[in-house]
């Protein structure tokens, strides 16, 4: 009897388990674009999916670098997605979306519906990288790009790997964006992506950031504005700081560091103290300084590098205060440092934030001069 039962259980496990639908019936959605549908006033959704087996590999099992897109329209976002279902060769599989691109029109109208849908419905993923584009998202998803890999993977590579070296853009994943936008009624930043033409070729340009407040797109930050933000939020690893010094041009590579933002109460006044402590190495000097014997030179370069970083942060803080939107996360720092003071100020934060005094202190230490100490002059 036990043997019979065991055989039945094993057979049941084999016969009744597994996917409810074969994997070949799905199309893996890697990029998800959202635009406003002007005809209906609803949404137009564009889904970009890889062509299976298009990379010269065994058909149906591998992903090449070719993609196809389908679109759907609907009064609600979910209706638009379901509309796109009928245009795809399989069922769009939304659990591994890598990149979501939001069109400017939808951004301005508000992304609350999208946020709600992605959070509520487990068929969506919560970790795609979010971008706003100036114009329509579908243009990016339908553009012919000359990448050796899928565009979505190329974008993910840029935001995860290249961001370490280039502070001129900001990128955030959906779950972390939620944390910023839902936590407090202040602003939050999202990535910015645009389709540009260079030498007749389509190129995706990731630069600057987009600003959201109350779930609506209210502005953009340029690439130079975002450098200070990345310094402020500790988002730098191998970035360069370059500046003219005397008759030279200096390029310092920052290897490590930490930025600390803390509110300080001085008298009755709330002041934000920003401390940047970083170390790096000289990557390039456009002259022939005597670093071996001129001991004061490194100290001077430390100070000038600090001043440059300070100016980056100052620009960003001033911009945010001028816009009267706290996307710098100052309110969150206050909430978690002085919760009682935050309780008193939270309702009037939009008026308090623009007048906050900010003190920036930098402590830069150039520890390395590269593989050479002095550069022999080239004649």
């Amino acid at each position, binding site marked *: 009897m036990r043997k019979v039962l065991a055989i039945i259980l094993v057979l049941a496990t084999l016969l009744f388990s597994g996917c*409810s639908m074969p994997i070949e019936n799905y199309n893996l959605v890697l990029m998800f674009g959202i635009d406003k549908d002007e005809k209906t006033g609803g949404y137009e959704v564009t889904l970009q999916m890889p062509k299976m087996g298009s990379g010269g590999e065994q058909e149906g099992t591998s992903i090449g670098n070719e993609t196809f897109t389908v679109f759907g329209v609907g009064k609600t976002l979910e209706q638009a997605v379901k509309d796109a279902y009928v245009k795809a060769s399989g069922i769009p599989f939304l*659990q*591994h979306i890598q990149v979501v691109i939001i069109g400017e029109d939808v951004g301005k109208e508000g992304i609350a519906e999208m946020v709600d849908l992605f959070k509520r419905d*487990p068929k969506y*993923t*919560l*970790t795609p990288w979010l971008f706003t584009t100036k114009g329509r998202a579908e243009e990016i998803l339908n553009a012919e790009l000359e990448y050796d890999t899928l565009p979505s993977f190329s974008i*993910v590579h840029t935001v*995860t790997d290249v961001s370490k070296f280039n502070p001129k853009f900001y990128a955030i994943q959906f*779950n*972390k964006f*939620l*944390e910023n936008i*839902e*936590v407090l009624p202040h602003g939050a930043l999202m990535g910015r992506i645009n389709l540009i033409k260079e030498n007749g070729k389509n190129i995706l340009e990731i630069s600057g950031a987009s600003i959201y407040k109350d779930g609506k797109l209210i502005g953009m930050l340029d690439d130079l504005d975002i450098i200070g933000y990345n310094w402020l939020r500790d988002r730098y690893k191998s970035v360069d700081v370059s500046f003219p010094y005397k008759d030279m041009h200096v390029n310092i590579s920052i290897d490590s560091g930490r930025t600390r933002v803390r509110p300080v109460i001085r008298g009755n006044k709330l002041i934000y103290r920003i401390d940047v402590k970083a170390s790096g190495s000289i990557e390039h000097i456009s002259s022939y300084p005597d670093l071996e014997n001129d001991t004061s030179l490194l100290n001077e370069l430390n100070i000038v590098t600090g001043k440059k970083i300070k100016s980056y942060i100052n620009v960003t803080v001033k911009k945010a205060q001028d816009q009267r939107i706290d996307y710098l996360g100052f309110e*969150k*720092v206050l909430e*978690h*440092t002085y*919760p*009682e003071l935050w309780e008193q100020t939270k309702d009037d934060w939009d008026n308090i934030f623009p007048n906050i005094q900010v003190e920036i202190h930098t402590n830069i230490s150039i520890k390395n001069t590269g593989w050479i100490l002095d550069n022999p002059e080239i004649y």
Partner: protein
Amino acid sequence: MDKKNGTEKPCLSHHQYACLIINTLVSISAFMIPSPTVYTSKQYGALSVLIGLVQVIVIGYLVVKLGLMYPDKTVIEYSQDILGKVAGKIVGLIFLLTFFSVNVLALRQFTLPFQAFVSVDIPYTVILIMTMILVVYVLAKGLKTLSICSELIINFLAIFFILLMILPMRNLDWINIKPLVPHDWGMTIKGSFLSASFLAEDIIGLMLIPYVKDKKKIMKSNQLAVLISGLCISGVTAVEILTMGYERVDSTIFSTFMLLREAQFSQTLERLESVAIAMWGGLVFIKLSLYMFILAEGFREWLGLKDNKKIGFILAPIIVICSMIPQNITQVVRFPNHVWVSYVYPIVLFALPILLLLISVIKKRGEKN
């Protein structure tokens, strides 16, 4: 007592007893405590769980003390010795109804993640019935078999908790949990009652102590099990706050599933909630089976019958039908958060064991004098 099915008194080692307690306390709590606790305590949620843990350690001490005064009997039997036949029967029935409500709710809650994350096509009634058939099968196999299953599951639970701590590492933001010392102790303590009410389920010890072989080690095993469970849940709550921020944790029903839904390990391993589903399935199934045993055995003693299996066969469809009463997920979640904390925790889980202990101590002193 039927000795063939491995439920003779005593049949559990103190280690197996501890495993059953950990399994019961952690199974649903690890997935459902963080959200309502954080709703009340905000960033101090993890601290609230620790304060709740202190309360439960006190309750655990009282429960084991009471149980050891009548080491060969369950609370259903000795409540009649302590309070007299009628009052004892009423107290016994109150305990049984509490265990019944836990089983009903746990069964319904068991289906929720399967429907949400695995397959929305399977009607929840099918999951309810299939689960209950398995639970009754385990009841037929006896407590010993159940405790061995629990020992096995606990090993996976340990791995699961390590994963739960490691996988969200890259999303941690330490500012989310600051300040570490609460500015409002009132809300921190208020939040502790919720976690304590879940953890105070260790009163099932009142039904299990007679089945443990080495009575001297019960106190240590019980308190250690409560401590491990509380620390695990506090740790999970802390990681959730660190990762998602308290505002997102309190708005999510199954925040632990959400934690793994967002977790990414390197750039390839993602959508890891399936790991939590597997763990949930194993843990809650053992909990349901243990409560079914407690109910069947409790009603057998309360009614003065011989066989608990027949009672299990009668109870199973009743539990399934009752678990279909909540109309929607809000009702399933709201009941434990309101009724459980406000009424069941202070009266049944806290006051009744103290009352029984006090009366029995007074009675025994009177007998000595």
